[in-house]
């Protein structure tokens, strides 16, 4: 199992009810697998998993990416700065 840290921002933070979450995940888990896990375990996040942006170690990551150990991941909606 790998330890990872999830950060939530904007609507995802509000739906998760927390800014950060530490998780243990299987060593071969992909971004898709994590999304499925979160959708299953956190009903408030289920709807958000369809359009969420995900980053691994501050770079955008996509469904097939395998999550490395000690990853800092973030989940957030499309950005709206400016």
């Amino acid at each position, binding site marked *: 199992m790998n330890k990872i840290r999830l950060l939530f921002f904007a609507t995802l933070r509000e739906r998760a009810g927390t800014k950060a979450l530490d998780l243990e995940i299987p060593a071969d888990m992909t971004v898709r697998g994590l999304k499925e896990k979160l959708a299953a375990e956190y009903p408030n996040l289920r709807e958000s998993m369809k359009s969420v*942006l995900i*980053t691994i170690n*501050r770079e955008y990551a996509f469904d097939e990416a395998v999550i490395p150990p000690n990853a800092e991941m*973030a989940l957030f*909606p*499309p*950005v*709206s*700065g*400016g």
Partner: protein
Amino acid sequence: MSENFPTIFSITEDEIDLNDLLAKITLTSTGAAAIFAGMVRGETKRGDAHQTEYLEYEAYIPMAEAKMKQVADEIRARWESIEGIAIVQRIGKLYPKTPTVLIACTAAHRDTGVFEAARYGIDRLKEIVPIWKKEVGPNGEEWVEGEYIPKAGE
């Protein structure tokens, strides 16, 4: 040469000082600056017309700074004329008419891409830099969501 060209990027809760930022990206060889500034609109007419009391900005700060650096690198890769670049996003609770974001590019001359570079910079900031805003108005609050989905390598 270009390693001596100043690149400023920051997420701040302080007022954006255009005079100071322009001075910091003006070199002896600089003759032109194009600056984009974004302000909080109190009254929006396009689309769903509405009023805004304030915006509340939030950022994933370390990644936002890294992505601002990336936007600056992309600008330099596209317009080799660019000398200095400043990219600043103010966060926190910001009221109408307040400058919230600044992108400034300098160059020796105005006809070598400085306007296009600033325009590119603000467009890219709104695509890939992880910053969000919640709009608070007379009818409650709503998160503003962008539309861009970053691609692999962005």
